[in-house]
């Protein structure tokens, strides 16, 4: 599009030369060279009023002959300052030294020219003096020559105002050398700016003066506009675009002020609609004769503003700021459209929309043209964005036109463009000057295509410019449009895909809107309400809830009713799915519509096993949500799960509703709320609270305490009460039924570290009288018990694989049971117990051989800190006895012994074997129990007796017992007293409950009166330890027998004579050997070489005779050695000890070394002492009397 000439007025420079020069062929060369210096570049201009320096990158200049200037009449209409030339150039050729020629030929011309030029206002002039110095005629006398150069002459003649107007140019050096021309070009720029400065400041003065006269009568805005506009066009001509924009902006502001003051007399009507006003290209400045209309004061405001806008946009475009221009147009279309509404009645129907539509589109075209024309860099995203915005505006005009032409329904999003409702009551004939629109109005198909094409174009541009969110919005609009024209599946696809773009940033409103559209479309499509439908509805409800129902963006429906309908259809579709036997549940995690919160502790059911948990379900929907079941699952420390649930018949009403959830089994402890599930037919809305850890803004974890139920079915395990070392291990499980009358219970045991052989399980012998009628059946999977009465305990053993490597074994117990009270409820209780596998006591044995007897000393000590009570220890022969072997206990008195960590217990047994060694192993069986067990049983018994009168008070009994045990645990002061007397002094605890307090006091009293029974009672544990009887090759009995003294008369009575110190005493050393305990029966025939040695006792005895000697021992033989002893002092002391050791058997080698037979020697005289009397005679005592 070509702008009118006056706006593109370039600065004019005139040239002239002496006629002879013009006529010469050289002239053309000169002129061409001068033209080649243009356009001028890098001009630095400093505005008079401002301090900053402006740079004109490039300035195109009109070079015209001076003669072409016409002295036209100065028009009254101020036009651009560049209309008049800014600079005049006079070119002449003359040798520098040729002053004569100058003076005669040129000076006159120049003078004339200068006269005519300097009369002109605000114009500068320049004399270009071209020299062609001939090297051969170079002047010799330099000093002299300089003074007389033509240039000097020129300067003196014409430089009147101290400014340099003369430039000399050496043509010879080469006309294409920029340095040669630099001075001339600089002068050119200088001159131009000088003149421009003068002119512009003069014009600015004028403008200012006029502006100041605004309030005076006669001032005319239009005139002022033209005046001021001339400034802008002058700047534009000088390529000072930013400067050029300023007057327009100021004019716009002034116009706004004027229009606010309603002083519109200078204008025509607001609009004088011409028939094609609505389709004219908006930014064309010459589509109408605007300036003339302004001058004539007949321009309409509409036209005026368009003119102003298009000039501004043009300048912006020249500056490469397409985006600014588009924003300006967008804003303008909006604001002017608004203004036009005031006179809407006088306009053709939908004129404004059509105008905005065409204008927006034409602006986009214009922008494209500008981009091409000014070579604007379009890589900036905002350029495309601006165009897209305009297309968007055009599209929204189509919305309105579409509604008016009944192509579109008057519903959002189509009505969102304006806030007014349909104005055209009667269907007026819509006709526009824009043919496209006309066709579109008449033909729905054409309209649709137009709409879609336009929208897609905008989406494309938005996408190019990176404005994803705008594009999304248009996608939404497009989907709505598709929906409207019946292309429902395409619309549905878009609606389903769009929420995902909004949800990550929590734009719930938009997400919800999209979902609501999706729901709507889905309904219209009449698609089967399948899983997808369920998901859409749930997503919609989610966003509805996120909005808390307040800002939900829905239209033409009552929200509550709508939601109710959705929930109903959700339910029915879920039911349909169920009917279609979709095998899987439809889990939907973390739906916010229903939230579950639970109390922090559960209550016991009291009358039956299990506990109740209060839960509050909040239904955030405004309608009842159909629900059948609520499940809450808790997880404990061992990751065991506890499930609470409740069935609901009539759904969840809006708001809070309280429910009591029931858990069938009792599992005491502290639990973590893990998940909740709300079940509606097939649909499961679940919430996992554990995962919520990672989420920000998550609630803290909920801990729930479940109290322990003393009356619930329980299983305890302990070590078997009958432990036989060397045979398979088993554990004892005690099933206590508590309040339950159990019809059937299946107990399953498992352990990570051992396997159970349940098939071999058996009831504990003697524990349970068979006449109660409990049936016990051990199968591979577990132990089945039937018909167990309440309040009973059933113990049974379950053998398991070896676990002796472990100190403790974890055992998981599962009990499935059905009670008589609730035959329909099948419960599964899980217990996790730890079995200590180490034995509580250890036994050491020490053996002493005495001839045919063997004395065994068993030392029983505890392996832990616990006290053990031992009621009996027996050493038993194998079942059928051993011939000739008898066992004697040390004492027959049965007394309970307590083994403490400090004090082990000893048990002595004597084994009499008449027939040599005993090959069968014996059994040491110890009956024991832990002190704790005993005390517990005592308490149990006493409390049982105490509460005999209240048979129903099972719970109180259990509570009381546990309280007593707690109290005893807290203080160990009672232990000693109990050990001695059996009285249990229970430390006093504070007991609140009245009934219980009484029972507590009585129980304490009873326990304090308790005494150990005469004979052990209650249940005892038994441990059987196999004991092997040791072998001994030789058992030697050594003896020193004092025979007599040489001084004593031989006495027949056998009485020992008196023995005196220093006297020799005759004695016999007797060594009796027996092979009774030898390995084999042939032992008796053997002989062994033995060595005896009398131990020295140098303080008491002198031994004379064979103090040491070897002898051959045979079975049951006596070796006698006579010796003499001399007692060294008087007193009563032991005889020397004799050691007997076996020498290696010659010839027999065992394990590479000489075999030494085993031997045990005992001193027969070990306990004998002899009395040595002092020798007779005097004793002198010296007593000091002191210094006397």
């Amino acid at each position, binding site marked *: 599009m070509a702008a009118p000439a006056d706006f593109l007025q370039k600065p004019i420079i005139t040239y002239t030369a002496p006629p002879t020069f013009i006529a010469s062929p050289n002239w053309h060369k000169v002129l061409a060279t001068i033209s080649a210096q243009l356009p001028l570049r890098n001009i630095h201009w400093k505005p008079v009023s401002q301090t900053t320096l402006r740079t004109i990158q490039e300035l195109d200049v009109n070079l015209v002959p001076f003669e072409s200037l016409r002295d036209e009449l100065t028009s009254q209409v101020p036009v651009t300052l560049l209309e008049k030339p800014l600079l005049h150039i006079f070119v002449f050729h003359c040798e520098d030294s040729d002053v004569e020629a100058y003076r005669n030929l040129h000076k006159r011309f120049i003078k004339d020219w200068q006269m005519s030029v300097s009369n002109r206002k605000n114009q500068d002039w320049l004399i270009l003096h071209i020299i062609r110095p001939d090297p051969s005629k170079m002047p010799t006398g330099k000093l002299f020559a300089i003074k007389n150069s033509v240039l000097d002459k020129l300067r003196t003649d014409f430089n009147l105002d101290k400014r340099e107007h003369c430039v000399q140019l050496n043509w010879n050096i080469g006309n294409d050398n920029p340095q040669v021309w630099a001075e001339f070009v600089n002068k050119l720029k200088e001159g131009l700016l000088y003149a421009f400065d003068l002119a512009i400041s003069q014009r600015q003065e004028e403008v200012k003066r006029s502006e100041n006269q605004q309030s005076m009568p006669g001032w005319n805005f239009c005139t002022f506009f033209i005046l001021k506009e001339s400034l802008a066009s002058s700047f534009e001509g000088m390529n000072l675009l930013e400067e050029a924009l300023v007057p327009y902006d100021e004019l716009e*502001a002034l116009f*706004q*002020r004027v229009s*606010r003051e309603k002083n519109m007399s200078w204008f025509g009507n607001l609009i004088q609609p011409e028939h094609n006003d609505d389709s004219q290209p908006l930014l064309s400045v010459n589509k109408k004769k605007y300036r003339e209309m302004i001058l004539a004061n007949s321009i309409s405001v509409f036209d005026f503003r368009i003119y102003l806008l298009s000039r501004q946009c043009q300048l912006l475009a020249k500056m490469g700021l397409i985006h600014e221009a588009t*924003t300006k147009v*967008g*804003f303008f*279309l*909006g*604001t*002017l*459209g*608004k*203004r036009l509404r005031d006179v809407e009645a006088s306009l053709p129907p939908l004129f404004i929309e059509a105008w905005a539509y065409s204008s927006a589109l034409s602006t986009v075209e214009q922008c494209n043209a500008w981009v091409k024309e000014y070579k604007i860099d379009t890589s900036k*995203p*905002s350029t495309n*964005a601006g165009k897209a*915005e305009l297309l*968007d*505006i055009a599209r*929204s005009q189509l919305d309105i036109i579409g509604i008016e032409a009944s192509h579109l329904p008057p519903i*959002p*999003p189509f*009505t*969102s*463009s*304006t*806030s007014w409702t349909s104005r055209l009551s009667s269907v007026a004939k819509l006709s526009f000057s824009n043919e496209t629109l006309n066709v579109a109005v008449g033909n729905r198909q054409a309209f649709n295509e137009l709409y879609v094409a336009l929208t897609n174009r905008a989406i494309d541009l938005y996408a190019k*410019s*990176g*404005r*994803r*969110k*705008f594009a*999304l*919005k248009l996608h939404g609009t497009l989907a709505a449009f598709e929906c409207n024209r019946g292309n429902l599946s395409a619309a549905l696809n878009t609606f389903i895909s769009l929420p995902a773009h*909004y949800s990550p*940033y*929590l*734009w*719930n*409103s*938009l997400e919800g*809107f999209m979902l609501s559209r999706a729901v709507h479309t889905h309904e219209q499509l009449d698609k089967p309400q399948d899983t997808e439908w369920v998901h859409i509805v749930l997503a919609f409800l989610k966003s509805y809830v996120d909005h*808390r129902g*307040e*800002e939900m*963006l829905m*239209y*033409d429906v009552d929200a509550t009713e709508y939601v109710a309908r959705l929930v109903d259809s959700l339910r029915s579709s879920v039911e349909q799915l169920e009917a279609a036997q979709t095998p899987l549940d439809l889990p939907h995690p973390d739906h916010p519509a229903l939230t579950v919160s639970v109390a922090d502790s559960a209550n016991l059911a009291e009358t039956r096993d299990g506990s109740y948990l209060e839960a509050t379900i909040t239904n955030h929907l405004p309608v009842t949500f159909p629900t059948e079941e609520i499940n809450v699952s808790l997880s404990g420390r061992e990751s065991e799960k506890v499930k609470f649930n409740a069935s609901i018949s009539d759904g969840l009403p809006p708001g809070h509703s309280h429910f009591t959830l029931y858990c069938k089994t009792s599992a005491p402890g502290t639990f973590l709320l893990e998940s909740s599930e709300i079940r509606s037919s097939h649909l499961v809305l679940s919430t996992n609270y554990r995962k919520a850890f990672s989420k*920000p*803004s*998550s609630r*803290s974890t909920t801990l729930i305490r479940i109290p322990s139920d003393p009356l619930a079915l329980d299983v305890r395990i302990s070590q078997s009460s009958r432990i036989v070392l060397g045979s398979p291990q088993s554990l004892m499980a005690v099933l206590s039924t508590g309040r339950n009358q159990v019809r059937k219970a299946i107990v399953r045991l498992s352990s990570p570290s051992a396997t159970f052989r349940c098939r071999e399980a058996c009831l504990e012998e003697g524990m349970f009288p068979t006449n109660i009628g409990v049936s016990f059946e051990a199968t591979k999977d577990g132990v089945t018990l039937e018909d167990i009465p309440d309040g009973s305990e059933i113990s049974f053993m379950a053998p398991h694989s070896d676990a002796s490597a472990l100190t403790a074994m974890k055992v998981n117990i599962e009990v499935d049971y059905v009670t008589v009270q609730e035959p329909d409820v099948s419960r599964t209780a899980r217990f996790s117990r730890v079995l200590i596998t180490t034995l509580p006591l250890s036994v050491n044995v020490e053996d002493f051989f005495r001839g045919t007897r063997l004395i065994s000393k068993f030392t029983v000590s505890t392996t832990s800190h616990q006290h053990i009570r031992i009621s009996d220890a027996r050493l038993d022969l194998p079942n059928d006895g051993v011939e000739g072997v008898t066992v004697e206990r040390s004492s027959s008195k049965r007394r309970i012994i307590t083994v403490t960590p400090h004090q082990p217990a000893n048990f002595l047994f004597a084994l009499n074997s008449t027939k040599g060694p005993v090959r069968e192993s014996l059994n040491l069986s110890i009956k024991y129990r832990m002190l704790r067990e005993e005390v517990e049983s005592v308490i149990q018994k006493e409390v049982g007796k105490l509460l005999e009168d209240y048979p129903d008070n099972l719970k109180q009994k259990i509570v009381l017992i546990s309280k007593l045990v707690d109290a005893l645990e807290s203080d160990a002061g009672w232990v000693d007293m109990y050990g001695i007397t059996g009285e249990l002094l229970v430390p006093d605890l504070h007991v609140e409950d009245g009934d219980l307090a009484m029972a507590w006091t009585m129980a304490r009293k009873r326990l304090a009166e308790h005494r150990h029974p005469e004979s052990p009672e209650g249940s005892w544990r038994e441990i059987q330890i196999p004991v092997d009887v040791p072998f001994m090759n030789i058992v030697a009995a050594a003896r020193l027998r004092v025979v007599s003294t040489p001084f004593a008369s031989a006495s027949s009575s056998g009485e020992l004579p008196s023995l005196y110190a220093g006297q020799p005493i005759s004695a016999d050393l007797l060594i009796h050997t027996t092979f009774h305990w030898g390995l084999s029966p042939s032992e008796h025939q053997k002989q062994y070489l033995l060595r005896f040695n009398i131990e020295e006792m140098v303080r008491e005895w002198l031994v004379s005779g064979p103090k040491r000697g070897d002898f051959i021992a045979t079975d049951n033989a006596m070796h006698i050695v006579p010796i003499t002893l001399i007692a060294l002092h008087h007193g009563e002391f032991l005889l020397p000890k004799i050691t007997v050791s076996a020498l290696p058997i010659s010839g027999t080698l065992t394990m590479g070394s000489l075999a030494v037979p085993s031997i045990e020697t005992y001193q027969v005289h070990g306990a004998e002492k002899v009395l040595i009397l002092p020798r007779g005679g005097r004793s002198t005592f010296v007593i000091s009397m002191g210094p006397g």
Partner: protein
Amino acid sequence: MPPSLKLNAVAFVSPQNHPILIRTFNNQDEHAIKYHYIAHTSLDVIEERGEFSIRRIICVQLIFSVAAAGKAFECYLGLLFTMEDVAVYGYITPLKVKIILALALSDAVVKDAEIITIFKALHMAYYSSVSNPFLKLETVGDSSSDQATILAVGSPKWKLFRRRVDDINWAVGNLNSLT
């Protein structure tokens, strides 16, 4: 003369582009979605501008100290775009909370200074509301991010922020009709 400035909607958007509060002052509820759209789409434009302002900050930081850069940062983003019958203005607080103003288009001059004043008032309203220490009550446990706190301001539970915004709207409407 009708007031030259009429607020149609105000939107506060968190630094993470999550909506904090979108308040529409039109009675017609069915148009609320439009302002949600406007708030959402404005983010694109703010982002576009943001690239420039970040560059500007860097330049400023090179020249001045960092402290000065904060002051030099221009919060007001000006007219973002014109859509249908509203003009949309943007403002970004130093902590990157975006405030978006949808102004009813009218054929009167809109002075930037006036808009900035409104924005500053809105910023202040937001600032004083988010300073409420009780907001953090609900978001105990993740003090590391203030995001939840910021979002909580706009939740219907805390009415004061809405009231403050409404007051500003009232003031804008009335001041204009008075002058």
